[in-house]
């Protein structure tokens, strides 16, 4: 890897000036490297982070079959990484005009990394620096513990999609005024909801009563409020004192739960394993926002590279070259999904909506298609609108809020279905729906979504760790369950149980002839897997 030459760097600095003038914001420094195929071989398993820890699996072909992007949520071939300064990678033979386009694209990404709030937790440090120190920790441990470090890495990595990314993110946004006393938190968060199981109406009344008493008397309001509350629930104080001793038990973040609660990891001999788990967990949380903003991020970068390239006075004469590459990147496929194309169109659509004042309730109330088309208040707030979206949204909200019928009609979008025609024995690809709601659901269903697995310590008997997979319409990949659970059992030091749902596919038998077609349905069954002494047992519930 070597830095780009001065000539190219000058082009990059020129791009930065123009991008800033257009409203993008990013740190001053950036590093651009030329990469060869050899470099890529080393970089891609390390998700383009040059300083990531070494691990033997990085050197082996990894099978990526089912659910590839659920298994490997971080894209191994990103052009720019979210570090301080941001590092981007280039082929050594790009012509200048192409570099200008790529630079704008990269600057779009950097602006997104540094301003989108889902990346908030990555803003205060340089990940390559942290990764380097982690790499040294792992190298040092490996020198002492040998292959066991790799086992722990393997087990930890098999859980790295079950981390509490959102839980990590949310405290960063808590305002200072929102800090409440422990008693208040306990009363509203635990006592009323979990102990008393209050109906929502009464719960809200209680909240209103608290607000009133604070409004009446800012100083003493809370004390007075609790005086009344205790009169109503005399046991409240006792519960609170009891609860104050008990520490908060993690329920969503399995890696963190193991670090905090595993007896096995707490033994003197095994404490070092916690550092490995922490490294894997931190790395995973660092990458989480990237996959949750794929469409937005690529759309944003494509929107800006198009706009800024065409306005750039330095590359006159390459419009046709640009058009070819740009069309290749951002054309809507006849069948399939392209995040660049979809994201960029949606950004342009939002820009126009902002400019015409179509962002408010006034506009949403209009049902008449013709009127909607003509609506224009001349608000001119397009840029403001898309910058606000860039800051506050992730893919899920971006698609859910903004893909509407106007948008899908404008770009002729539809849901493509694939079905079997049993008479002619062909797979048919057909226009399944032009309804925006269905299109939206189809895109949302294709977004990255790790399974929701909750730790339920109260359900585990005799030290067993009990995990509940909350069923969301998709079962887990069965082949992977055994080996993953071996890892959990090892880290937990006792048996592990996993409750999940599985499909029972029954083809209706008898009578259904060739013409009748197969009437089939999926029914779901709740099952429990138990991993004990490295053997897996499955039991239907």
């Amino acid at each position, binding site marked *: 890897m070597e830095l780009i030459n001065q000539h190219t760097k000058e082009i990059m600095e020129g791009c930065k000036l123009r991008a800033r003038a257009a409203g993008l914001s990013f740190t001053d420094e950036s590093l651009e490297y030329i990469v060869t195929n050899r470099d*890529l*071989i080393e970089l891609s398993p390390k998700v383009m982070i040059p300083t990531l820890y070494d691990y*033997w*699996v990085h050197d*082996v*072909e990894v099978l990526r079959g*089912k*659910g590839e992007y*659920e*298994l490997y949520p971080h894209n*191994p071939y990103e*052009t720019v990484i979210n570090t301080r300064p941001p590092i981007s990678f280039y*082929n050594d033979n790009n012509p200048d005009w192409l570099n200008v*386009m790529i630079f704008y*694209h990269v600057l779009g990404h950097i602006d997104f990394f540094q301003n989108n709030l889902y990346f908030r937790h990555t803003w205060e440090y340089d990940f390559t620096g942290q990764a380097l120190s982690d790499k040294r920790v792992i190298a040092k441990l490996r020198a002492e513990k040998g*292959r066991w470090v790799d086992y722990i890495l393997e087990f930890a*990595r*098999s*859980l*790295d*999609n*079950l981390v509490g990314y959102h839980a990590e993110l949310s405290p960063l946004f808590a305002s200072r005024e929102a800090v409440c006393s422990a008693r208040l938190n306990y009363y509203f968060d635990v006592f009323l909801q979990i102990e008393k199981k209050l109906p929502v109406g009464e719960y809200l009344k209680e909240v209103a009563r608290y607000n009133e008493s604070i409004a009446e008397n800012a100083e003493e309001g809370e004390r007075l409020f609790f005086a009344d509350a205790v009169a109503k629930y005399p046991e409240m104080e006792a519960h609170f004192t009891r609860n104050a001793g008990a520490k908060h038990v993690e329920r969503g973040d399995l890696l963190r739960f193991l670090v905090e609660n595993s007896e096995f990891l707490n033994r003197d001999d095994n404490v070092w394993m916690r550092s490995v788990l922490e490294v894997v967990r931190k790395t995973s949380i660092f990458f989480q926002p990237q996959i949750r903003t794929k469409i937005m991020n690529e759309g944003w970068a494509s929107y800006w590279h198009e706009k800024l390239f065409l306005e750039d006075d330095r590359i006159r004469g390459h419009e046709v070259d640009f058009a070819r590459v740009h069309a290749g*990147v951002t054309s*809507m*496929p*006849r*069948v*399939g999904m*392209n*995040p660049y194309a979809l994201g960029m169109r949606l950004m342009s659509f939002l820009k126009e909506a902002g400019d015409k004042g179509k962002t408010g309730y006034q506009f949403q109330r209009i049902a008449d298609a013709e009127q909607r088309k003509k609506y224009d208040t001349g608000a001119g707030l397009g840029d403001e609108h898309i910058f606000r979206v860039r800051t506050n949204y992730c893919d899920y909200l971006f698609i859910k809020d903004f893909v509407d019928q106007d948008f899908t009609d404008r770009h002729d*979008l539809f*849901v*493509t279905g*694939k*079905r*079997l025609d*049993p008479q002619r*024995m062909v797979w048919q*690809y*057909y*226009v399944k729906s032009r309804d925006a709601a269905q299109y939206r659901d*189809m*895109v949302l269903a*294709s977004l990255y*979504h*790790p399974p929701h697995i909750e730790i339920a310590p109260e359900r585990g008997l005799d030290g067993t760790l009990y995990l509940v*997979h909350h069923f*969301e319409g*998709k079962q887990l*990949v069965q082949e*992977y*369950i*055994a080996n993953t659970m071996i890892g959990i059992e090892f880290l937990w030091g006792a048996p592990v149980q*996993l409750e999940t749902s599985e499909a029972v*596919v029954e*083809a209706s038998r008898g009578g*259904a002839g*060739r013409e009748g077609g197969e009437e089939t349905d*999926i029914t779901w069954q709740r099952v429990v897997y138990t991993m004990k002494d*490295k053997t897996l047992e499955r039991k239907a519930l």
Partner: protein
Amino acid sequence: MKDPFKYLDELKKSKALEPEREARFRAELAISREVAAGERQGPFPGFARGVYAWHDMAVLQDQGRVQNPYLSQMKALDELLERDRQREKDGFPRKIKVGRLIKPGKGGKGKIVVVPSTEEEKLVHDPTIRPPGEGGSTGGSGKGDEGEVIGEQKVRDTGEEPGAGPGQGEGESHEMGASAYELGRVLTEQFQLPNLKEKGKKRSFTRYVYDLTDRNRGSGQVMDKKATLRKIVETNIALGNLPDLCDIDPTRFLISPRDKVYRVFSQEKDYEPQAMVFFLRDYSGSMAGKVTELVATQHVMIYSWLLYQYAGQVESRFILHDTEAKEVPDFHTYYNSRVAGGTEVASAYKLVNEIVEKENLAADYNIYVFHGTDGDDWDTGGDKSIPELIRILSYVSRMGVTIAEHSGTQWTEVARYLENSGLLRDKPDLLRMDVMTEDAEEARVIDGIRKLIS
């Protein structure tokens, strides 16, 4: 290809089919067990490609996925296997897979690429579970009314599926050397597969051809002019007869009789291949997915092992069958083909007999036949298969039948009639059967080979 439905009707007329079995056969014809990565391209290759498959390096800079060449070297493979054995000793299941990723280039027999590979298991959602007959959905753009069909793809299509391994179907792109022979060595040494027993039937076919290859000075049949001239120049330099090398006058050369170099006839050894392996695979609808992978994996390993055992003197033939059998030219096609037809094992056995007879192979070769199936056969009781099988057993060195059962099934049709025929008991040297479940690990597959060949 005959219409499987018609075939099924005939079958029904000629024999009373239990309704349960008939339903199963029908289900097989309409099967839609999808393999995520193995979805065939069809008219819209982008169909199965989600938003996360796109990345800047490819899209903007035309930089595709780079293959990791490190471990195509067998030294590294040895290290990995050592690591894997250590894993087993430490009490964890093995993790390196050797045979799973065979991606032979088209046409290049024996050029099997061995890529050690592994999987990182996690608890993730399975995107492939959907009702049969339903192929999923994705985005689209452009013209077309709701319900309009915009493209079709034959199910019963012997086209290729893009492989599930690295290279994503383009076998040619990473032929990095490690040959099947090497895999055979690894299997023999590392996995302690047995060496081939010296059998009476094993014949060494060494025959001689004669060619003008040896050289002789002074006399012979044909003069080698270039070599002769070289000798003459050497002699003349030694004699000091060439004062100026830039100005050679050939008329002044002194020529000794020993300078004349001739080519003479000589005996050359020419090896005939010693073994002929037939690989038979059921590629009917029910075979989709893991079963095929298991069978193909095992066949590659067997092939490699034989290649090593016979020091490269192995020829292979590949036969695919559903209700009809056909020979395919290379392993690539053998591995990647799929249809949604029915199953009749006898067709494949018959084809083997025909080939052997027509080419008179039994006289010159040690013949091996390996058959992989999910155990389903429309030919109840093996009425057609068993006679063909007996014919095969009259000339083979070993026949091995691998049955990879789908989870939930047990005691499949093929297993049943093989067992009932008594051949397994009477001719254990010639016929072996190995039954495994479809989720068998690689270690089990290798174990199976041991069962089939030892």
